[in-house]
């Protein structure tokens, strides 16, 4: 197990106090406890992204060095967003505080802090909206749920809008369908107007503009890395795969998160893509410019979403591909499926995606021209285009974590399960209220996957960890499959902590293990280089 500096042991963390404080929430000040908040963004990253008021500051200090007219900036910022986003106005007005969302948030369940109830997290902003923008709030103040905008409110926003992973589980249960993630997003945008951001969200966004991807991998490094994978694949399968890079006139542009080619276990899934595309003889290409599927704009501002997303489509146009295939990423799919079309679309310079192997038209991607690899692969299996030997995954007992965004923003539930069931024999779903649209978050998405926030991540990871532990104890599950690069980084410490012994995998790693290639040699190991039959201790 990895060393988790300063995090209490699980038995300690489980002593969760659900007793609310004696005073009302407006009178309970925020307490920045180490391990539960995120470090501010370095001023250099603010500058690279041309965000206002770059400076060095610390949440632990009394003075956050706010600009002189900070109050005016925030109130104007709210006004601008109320006029721009009808949804925001509705979400501010419509909540009746019924409490249906209260116990649906993983951060509330794991911390017991009432301000992590989605309703109360939204109230942090709604109270200012009432005071500044409604007649009742202006006149009656606190009686009408309004409160003064003070620096303490800003501190509270910074703490709690970065204790929300924008996973949208609460929205599933809201009778009005209030999308609390969008409230968090607006809250974060307002903070950025004051130069208050977190480094784990801004640094990857800045790197994306400078090198093409979040992890700062340069074009020649990406080439070297993919060639290293090709060598490894040849050692394991005896088959040499090609690495098409920046190939003009390819049919398909393939885009995946940089985590997939940066660190294990994502790298095994990346090898899986290479193997699958080779076997299909797909005319596709990687790009060193659009070498990032993820979009940390989603955790920063609407404008940043648009700027980062535009790179993928600019590259598709430059290379002259027909359509785009996207890898196993999470939040990338919320951007593609719910924002792209109105921000940068319609992508009418591309063609409606058709699988060159099966002829299937992906009607759902008619407008964005971007297909999820799980739909692509499930379609291949359905049409019997892959020769699969699931016994090569016999040592695995698998469960599947629905990543929040593909699940709740796309409704992609059955395709991954269909693929998994076809490539391995033992698959066990976690309990019904913890999967599919009710899936519990990894607690490290939306920019929160950093080490300084580890206690809060593990608290928020408790509901997911608990469900993994359940199938581990009941069915002997030893692999947690997921189709998201952030998950492949954050679920590793989560499992080590809450369900030790369960390893994390991407789905195309398992696909490629089972896939019988033309001309392959007898496989002795899986893509991890481990014997096919038994899990290494």
């Amino acid at each position, binding site marked *: 197990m*990895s*060393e988790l500096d300063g995090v209490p042991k699980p038995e300690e963390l489980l002593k969760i106090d659900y007793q609310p404080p004696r005073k009302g929430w407006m009178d309970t000040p925020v307490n920045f406890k180490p391990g539960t908040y995120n470090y501010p963004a370095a001023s250099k990253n603010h500058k690279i992204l041309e965000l206002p008021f770059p400076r060095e500051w610390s949440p632990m200090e009394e003075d956050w060095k706010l600009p002189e007219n900070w109050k005016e900036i925030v109130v104007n910022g709210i006004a601008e967003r109320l006029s721009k986003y009808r949804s925001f106005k509705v979400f501010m007005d419509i909540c009746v505080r019924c409490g249906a969302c209260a116990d649906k948030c993983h951060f509330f369940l794991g911390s017991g802090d009432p301000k992590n109830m989605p309703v109360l997290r939204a109230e942090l902003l709604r109270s200012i909206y009432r005071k500044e923008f409604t007649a009742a709030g202006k006149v009656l103040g606190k009686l009408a749920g309004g409160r003064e905008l003070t620096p303490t409110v800003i501190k509270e926003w910074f703490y709690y809008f970065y204790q929300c992973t924008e996973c949208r589980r609460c929205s599933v249960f809201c009778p009005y369908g209030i999308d609390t993630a969008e409230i968090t997003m607006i809250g974060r945008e307002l903070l950025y107007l004051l130069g208050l951001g977190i480094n*784990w969200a801004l640094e990857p966004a800045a790197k994306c503009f400078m090198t093409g991807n979040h*992890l700062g991998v340069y074009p020649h490094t990406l080439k070297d890395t993919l060639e290293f994978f090709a060598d490894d694949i040849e050692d394991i399968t005896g088959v040499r795969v090609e690495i098409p890079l920046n190939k003009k006139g390819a049919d398909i542009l393939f885009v995946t998160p940089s985590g997939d080619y940066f*660190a294990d276990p994502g790298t095994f899934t990346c090898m899986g893509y290479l193997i699958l595309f080779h076997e299909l003889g797909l005319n596709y290409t990687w790009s060193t410019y659009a070498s990032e599927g993820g979009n940390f704009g989603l955790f920063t501002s609407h404008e940043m979403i648009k700027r980062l997303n535009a790179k993928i489509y600019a590259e598709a146009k430059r290379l002259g591909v027909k359509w785009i295939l996207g890898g196993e990423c999470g939040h990338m799919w919320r951007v593609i499926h719910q924002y792209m079309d109105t921000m940068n679309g319609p992508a009418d310079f591309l063609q409606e995606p058709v699988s060159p192997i099966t002829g299937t038209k992906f009607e759902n991607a008619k407008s964005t021209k971007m297909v999820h690899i799980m739909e692509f692969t499930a379609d291949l299996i359905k049409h019997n285009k892959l020769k699969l030997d699931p016994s090569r995954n016999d040592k695995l007992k698998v469960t599947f974590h629905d990543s929040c965004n593909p699940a709740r923003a796309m409704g992609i539930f059955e395709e991954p399960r269909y693929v998994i069931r076809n490539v391995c024999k033992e698959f066990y779903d976690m309990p019904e209220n913890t999967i599919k649209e009710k899936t519990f978050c990894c607690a490290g998405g939306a920019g929160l996957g*950093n*080490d300084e926030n580890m206690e809060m991540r593990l608290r928020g990871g408790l509901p997911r960890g608990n469900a993994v532990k359940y199938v581990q104890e009941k069915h002997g599950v030893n692999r947690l499959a997921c189709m998201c690069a952030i998950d492949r*980084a954050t679920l590793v410490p989560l499992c080590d902590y809450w369900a030790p012994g369960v390893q994390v995998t991407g789905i195309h790693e398992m696909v490629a293990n089972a896939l019988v290639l033309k001309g392959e040699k007898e496989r002795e190991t899986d893509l991890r280089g481990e014997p096919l039959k038994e899990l290494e201790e």
Partner: protein
Amino acid sequence: MPIITYKNLKVQVDDEGYLVNFEDWNEDVACAIAEREGISHECPLAQEKIDILRFMREYYKKHNSFPLLRAVCKNLHQPKNCTYEQFPDPIKAWKIAGLPKPTTEVFAYIRHNS
């Protein structure tokens, strides 16, 4: 910025202990940082460790980024988890190799992956 002294050596590190000048590094500096990080009190460091550090430095010179850890071990003909085995945390290895602090996302992908 702090200066660390070791035997008759003096080198500058940043507030978190990362070497400031790439060119200041040698095997004695590695010993000094390793001792400071509580990884090793031996000097010189074991050859396997030195090989990893030198590989990381070469990689950094060429790519300006954190290496694919499997590639480090494969190239050096060491066991596939060599960086975790030799330095429980590969980011410590990076630091002992005299390289600048990696980005926060690199930490998230690397630190907990043994």
